[in-house]
């Protein structure tokens, strides 16, 4: 088989763990049932969100059809997916192209830069298809059925589905490959790589704002008129976030006309061009960014007795285990990017667009009217607490804390530190970053919303308690089904279902409590007390479970 195809196939099998699942299932047929059960559980978990999304789309279609703007639901879906693919793509490309432990093993094989980059690109592409599925399938199907689309529409939709990730992923690859080429210099390679990743992200965010800002002012009445009167004018506006998506939007809404075909061809052409460009640049630069990237420089300086005194100070075992967790989280680039920096980036990303907007337009924020009334304050508090809960569950620190140990898990088994203490240390490490994330989130909220001190204080206290059950649930999930068998760190955090399960838990738990608050409680102090009570109660129950079932299961785990 062609080297490129063979490599792609091998990487795909390895990344998705296909052989491993097959091997397990061969030994025990129940493994298939387990996978099926898990898939069903996730499907049931996300079903309400999908239903809500579909309802929104259907309503949107019905509302926009009379003004000839129904194409917007398609373009919105395409833009949403393209933007997600672009941002996820940057993370995937950095992690999978550069940080993955096996990235360098391929250097010894007689392969060209584009072959390795292309094979890795293809694997990431497959992940992106999975990302695309829940977001794009609903608008495509709803638009197709409701507009009574012809077979050509469905063929174009399939082509669109397959081609959509190419351009954003190509665009994510290009700057990453260039910046990583130059980040692979100097002594602190790990640090440079992380900085490189951040620069790519910053560029991406900057580009998005530039594109958004370069258009006409959305508040201009004349512009709104053109939007509403011009067929698909709104679609053109929406697609400005990712200009090429416009062509696919037009192709799908005009599937039966020559215009549709022309636009589809432009879209596929642009997508292929982006891939070709990314691969061509990758062919020249990829290996240079990779060769020697794992080298670590050492000073080999003899330590003085003063150094020993300073460095070898003892601490209690639990604290020492906690410090070890923190050090490994911060020093492993993949963990730093995915578990730690998320806590800092999300509040920043939430803040920036609104800040830019407020400076440009000087108009009131949509929520400013809320801050005056107690009901509004309650809603804002619940939303901030909800965001903190979600942030803590999505950073995956506790829901991957055993998984991250991988082959090193045996150390936790033979050291004379009780499982109880280890569980506590792991919870604490999650809590530390949770607190940092919640505080930053609150700072972002304070910048955006003129909240009074009491509300700020209450929100902080509730957030600090609300994150506890989320952290506990994550850890419990990871103790029950740790992913210890991996060959690169990315699999422990990025390709770990436990993070998704923990997020689902937080959505169910947080969503339920916050729903009650927003729906029934209109006083911020009562709301805070209710949230403290309910999150506290769940925290107590989960803590009890961790200290009983969790410890039993921990002691049964083998590596």
């Amino acid at each position, binding site marked *: 088989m062609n080297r490129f195809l063979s490599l792609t196939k091998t990487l795909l099998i390895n990344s998705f763990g296909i052989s491993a699942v097959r091997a397990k299932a061969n030994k025990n047929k129940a493994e298939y049932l387990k996978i099926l059960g898990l898939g069903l559980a996730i499907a049931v978990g996300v079903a309400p969100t999908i239903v809500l999304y579909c309802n929104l789309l259907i309503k949107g279609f019905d509302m926009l059809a009379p003004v000839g703007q129904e194409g917007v639901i398609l373009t919105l879906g395409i833009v949403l997916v393209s933007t997600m693919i672009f941002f996820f793509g940057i993370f995937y490309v950095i992690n999978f192209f550069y940080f993955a432990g096996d990235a360098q093993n391929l250097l010894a094989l007689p392969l060209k830069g584009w072959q390795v980059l292309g094979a890795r690109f293809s694997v990431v592409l497959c992940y992106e298809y999975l990302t695309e599925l829940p977001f794009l399938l609903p608008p495509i199907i709803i638009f197709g059925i409701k507009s009574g689309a012809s077979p050509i529409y469905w063929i174009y939709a399939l082509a669109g589905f397959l081609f959509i990730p190419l351009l954003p992923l190509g665009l994510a690859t290009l700057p990453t490959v260039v910046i990583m080429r130059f980040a692979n210099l100097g002594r602190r390679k790990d640090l440079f790589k992380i900085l490189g990743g951040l620069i790519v992200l910053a560029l991406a965010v900057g580009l998005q704002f530039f594109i958004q800002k370069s258009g006409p002012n959305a508040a201009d009445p004349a512009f709104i008129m053109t939007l509403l009167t011009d067929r698909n004018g709104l679609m053109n506006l929406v697609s400005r976030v990712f200009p090429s998506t416009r062509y696919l939007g037009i192709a799908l809404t005009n599937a039966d006309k020559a215009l549709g075909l022309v636009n589809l061809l432009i879209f596929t052409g642009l997508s292929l061009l982006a891939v070709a460009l990314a691969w061509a640049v990758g062919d020249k630069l990829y290996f240079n960014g990779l060769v020697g990237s794992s080298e670590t420089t050492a000073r080999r300086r003899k330590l003085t007795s003063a150094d020993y005194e300073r*460095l070898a100070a*003892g601490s209690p075992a639990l*604290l020492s285990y906690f410090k070890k967790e923190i050090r490994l989280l911060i020093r492993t680039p993949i963990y730093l990017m995915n578990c730690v920096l998320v806590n800092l980036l999300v509040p920043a990303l939430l803040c920036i667009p609104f800040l830019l907007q407020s400076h440009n337009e000087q108009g009131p924020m949509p929520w400013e009217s809320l801050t005056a009334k107690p009901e509004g304050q309650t809603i804002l508090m619940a939303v901030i607490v909800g965001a903190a809960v979600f942030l803590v569950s999505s950073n995956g620190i506790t829901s991957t804390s055993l998984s991250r140990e991988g082959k090193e898990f045996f150390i936790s088994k033979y050291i004379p530190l009780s499982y109880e203490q280890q569980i506590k240390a792991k919870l604490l490490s999650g809590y530390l970053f949770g607190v940092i994330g919640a505080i930053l989130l609150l700072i972002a909220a304070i910048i955006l919303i003129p909240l009074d001190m009491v509300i700020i204080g209450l929100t902080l206290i509730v957030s600090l308690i609300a994150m506890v059950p989320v952290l506990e649930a994550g850890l419990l999930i990871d103790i029950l089904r740790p992913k210890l068998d991996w060959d690169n760190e990315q699999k422990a955090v990025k390709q770990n279902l436990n993070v998704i399960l923990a997020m689902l838990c937080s959505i169910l738990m947080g969503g339920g409590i916050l729903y009650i608050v927003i729906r029934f409680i209109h006083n911020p102090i009562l709301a805070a007390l209710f949230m403290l009570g309910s999150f506290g109660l769940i925290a107590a129950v989960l803590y009890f479970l961790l200290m009983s079932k969790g410890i039993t299961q921990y002691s049964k785990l083998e590596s």
Partner: protein
Amino acid sequence: MIEIIGVSKSYNQGAVKAVDGVNLTVKNGEIFGFLGPNGAGKTTLIKMITGILNADEGSIRINGKDIRKDPIEAKMQFGFVPDDPNIFTRLTGLEYLNFMADMYNVPSAKRLDRMQSLLQRFEMSAAAGDLIQSYSHGMRQKIMVIGAMLHNPSVWILDEPMTGLDPRSSYDLKEMMREHADTGNTVFFSTHVLDVAEKICDRLAIINKGKVIFCGSKQEIHEHVKENQSLESLFLEMTENE
């Protein structure tokens, strides 16, 4: 002292018996070598002794402490060098040693002395402040050995400890094993290198397909071995596929 009583372990719901009814006693004051071909069950048994794996049957006691019933006390009795030294590579050598010292509650003053003398003995003083990631395989092995000895345990459990060590360090480790045993302590180690086993072990056991097929002292080996026959040929003969 290590007592292994009727220990068995199987995988795949009993389909593969990795360790099958092993009985062994490693006495104080002896170096006990554990030999066997690849996949014979050496590492599985060591993992059960150290609490990494749970035995399906039987019990294991270290200095009288049962690893299942009294795990923390049992774990305090031994120092363990795993067969793979590629762990905690993003910590510095000193951070790793400190971590291990904290786990075993080694008081600050004692750990300083011990760390310095062990680092010096293994010529690792200059590298202690650097990330383990920057170490060669042998250096990683050395830092594991030092980490296992920090709390001065009476029982040493070493899984392939000589792998990757340079001749000097290998010699030093063998000397240390001898000294440790001669002062009334226990050394239990697995190896592939028959010469090493023959030279430094007081007693040794050969395991094959999960079963101990030979266990005896140096003298017993010599009685077992025909004239001019080496341990190597005895090993090959015993572990040959039936």
